[in-house]
């Protein structure tokens, strides 16, 4: 890749005699005590993928149970615990930490030409807190389970005799982990950008992470106090949420959603950032509307704080509050729409290669558009009255969270896999897994829109016979989806052993991570790189090469 503008180019991509961040030091201990953001990223990656496998296992069990009404493979109580754990594991242990923890940690410093994040030891602490939180949360499986749903609504959660305290304390600790990551990223982006990396010369992935970090800082502490209040309500009956003592169960929902709605943006914004990278790099095209995409990330993050009450239109919230929240919800839909248009605009006039990462990015566009548009249904006050707490909602948030975030995550994983591991995976298998994923996903979840709009409530163990064919179809879809992930797992793991050595820049990208070796050396670059053009100046680069 000719990039004449890098002052330290020769030194920045050293053939360092085979020494890289992976084999720089040896032994488990050297990983557990590392402060290298790349190693921490890899440990996050392994952890969140384990969590994803666990959550996915619960999901498959749930779908199997729903194959027929009434008892199929488990009792109602087991079912309730399974969907709760599916939600808790996927939300707190997988989606929230996934992209920032794994890909963000690995690439954020490299993309701005820094040697590490601002607070490397805090970064390691954040990983340890994640593990501790995970152990707390998962200890519930071994004790009495948890059957509240991931939303912990009172008074159910303050009266059920399952392990609410373990899991809330776990989520509390996980919240700390999330806060520390966000704090670290914000400071890193402010203070450690290499010379020449101005705010608007950052890859858009970083704008996504920046916006995410703002939300993590502002919203997560409220989850902390909410869970603390819940624990006190359970153990000491303080009466803040207990109506018998003058408290208000609906107030809990305000507290919970003040965090959990912005948390939706913690989940999706980094994914949107990845998609901007994938489309630009694989289309070799300058991003259309860079500033619009960058600012819309921040706008989504901030306006996202004003709309939590749209989860409560039928919860006993006042009509005035519902009206205000509905209005603001429509406003937050706009920046998401703008992003989609900009991505399509970036395809225009590009030179598009259909490697696996790009296929995932196009799948994202398809799935996220459905997810986003069905969100508009739920934002409409009267329509939400019919759809709230039905499978329509389940389908909607799976299209956003899985069709959006997970698709972006696996797309990003394929995109950066050669950089992270130094190995190429089999393109054929990657394309196969993407195709299976796309088909399986739609089969599983599109069906659920139909069930929901026809009146099938969520969190149902047993259901009306008329829904059986649709449920069965959804369950078959989930098996295809499961198979897609098995193929993907095999492909990626196999590449570690048998994959070809990855070149420095397999996709012809222009951002800084493609300047350094695959895999990168311990401090990313031998000399601080000096960058004089944006990460998407493809046309200029081609022209320069031609001249």
């Amino acid at each position, binding site marked *: 890749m000719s990039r004449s503008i890098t002052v330290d180019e020769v030194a920045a991509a050293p053939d360092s005699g085979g020494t890289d961040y992976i084999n720089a030091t040896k032994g488990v201990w050297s990983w557990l005590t590392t402060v290298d953001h790349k190693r921490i990223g890899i440990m996050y990656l392994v952890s969140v993928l384990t969590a994803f496998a666990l959550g996915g296992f619960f999901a498959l069990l749930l779908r199997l149970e729903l194959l027929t009404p009434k008892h199929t493979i488990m009792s109602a109580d087991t079912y309730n615990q399974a969907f709760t754990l599916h939600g808790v594991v996927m939300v707190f242990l997988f989606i929230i930490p996934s992209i920032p923890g794994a890909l963000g940690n690995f690439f954020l410093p490299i993309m701005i030409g820094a040697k590490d994040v*601002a607070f490397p030891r805090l970064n390691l602490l954040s990983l340890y807190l994640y593990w501790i939180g995970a152990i707390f949360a998962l200890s519930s499986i071994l004790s009495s389970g948890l059957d509240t749903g991931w939303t912990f609504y009172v008074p159910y959660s303050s009266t059920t005799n399952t392990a609410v305290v373990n899991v809330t304390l776990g989520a509390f600790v996980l919240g700390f982990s999330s806060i520390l990551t966000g704090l670290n990223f914000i400071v890193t982006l402010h203070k450690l950008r290499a010379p020449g990396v101005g705010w608007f010369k950052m890859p858009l992935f970083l704008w996504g992470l920046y916006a995410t970090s703002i939300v993590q800082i502002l919203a997560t502490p409220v989850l902390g106090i909410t869970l603390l209040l819940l624990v006190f309500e359970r153990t000491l009956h303080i009466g803040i949420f207990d109506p018998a*003592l003058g408290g208000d169960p609906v107030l809990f929902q305000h507290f919970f959603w003040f965090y959990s709605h912005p948390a939706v943006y913690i989940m999706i914004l980094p994914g949107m950032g990845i998609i901007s990278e994938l489309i630009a790099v694989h289309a070799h095209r300058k991003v259309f509307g860079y500033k619009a995409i960058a600012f819309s990330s921040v706008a989504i993050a901030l306006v996202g704080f004003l709309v939590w009450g749209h989860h409560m239109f039928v919860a006993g919230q006042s009509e005035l509050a519902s009206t205000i929240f509905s209005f603001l919800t429509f406003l937050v839909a706009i920046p998401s729409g703008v992003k989609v248009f900009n991505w399509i605009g970036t395809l225009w006039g590009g030179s598009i290669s259909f490697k696996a990462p790009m296929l995932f990015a196009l799948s994202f566009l398809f799935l996220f558009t459905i997810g986003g548009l069905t969100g508009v249904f739920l934002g409409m006050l009267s329509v939400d009255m019919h759809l709230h707490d039905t499978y329509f909602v389940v389908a909607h948030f799976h299209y956003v969270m899985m069709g959006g975030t997970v698709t972006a995550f696996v797309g990003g994983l394929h995109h950066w896999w050669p950089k992270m591991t130094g190995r190429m995976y089999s393109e054929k298998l990657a394309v196969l897994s993407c195709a299976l994923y796309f088909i399986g996903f739609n089969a599983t979840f599109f069906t659920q829109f139909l069930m929901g709009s026809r009146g099938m409530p969520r969190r149902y163990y047993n259901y009306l016979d008329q829904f059986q064919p649709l449920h069965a179809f959804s369950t078959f879809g989930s098996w295809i989806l499961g198979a897609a992930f098995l193929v993907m797992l095999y492909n990626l793991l196999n590449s570690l052993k048998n994959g070809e050595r990855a070149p420095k820049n397999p996709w012809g990208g222009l951002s800084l991570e493609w300047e350094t070796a695959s895999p990168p050396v311990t401090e990313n670059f031998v000399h601080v790189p000096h960058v004089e053009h944006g990460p998407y100046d493809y046309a200029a680069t081609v022209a320069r090469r031609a001249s």
Partner: protein
Amino acid sequence: MSAPAEIVEGQPSAERGSPQFEVAHHFDSADTQFDAGRMGVWLFLVTEILLFGGLFCTFAVFRSWYFEDFVEAHHHLNKVMGGANTLVLIGSSLTMALAVRAAQMTDKKQTTRMLVITLLCAATFLVVKYFEYSAKFEHGLLPGAYFHGEGFQGTHAGVFFAIYFLMTGVHGLHVLIGMGLITWMLIRNLRGDFSSRYYAPVENVGLYWHLVDLVWIYLFPLLYLVG
């Protein structure tokens, strides 16, 4: 790092201590490292404010719903003790600020003195709190289900005391954590870690301590004065 520091004329330049301090490898200058640390602490303080914010929100909601009950219940708090504690905490904020100033001037003795006074103020605060809590326990002025205070007209005093104990309890926990951090600073100061070249930890603990004071500045009038 190698390059000898340039010293700006007119700034305090006691002994150039802290040989331990080196700019961390991933920062380009000492200023950047200082700023990064301080920005990190400010971001952390944001999370603290929103954590307490949840409790302020419950207070606002329930005060509005059970206004009379709250006014009645707040007369059972001791304004004198609360006021005294406010003065103690403000005093500790002053001494903390002075400790940072002393550290900035590489005045080790003065730093030690000020940190010790700050610790004593914090301890005084907690002792007063202990007496207040005991009095509440004695009269059955307890949260929610455990409330059995006598002579109350309203039926929601339990909610007031739930919020009172939560707010002051969480605040008290922060005072305790602050005392731990100040003690740690004291030890490091005695070890000779700090100088005008390097005082970031003292400054950052100071910021935390001032926030603890800030929260109390709102807690006190809300709970003790207007109810």
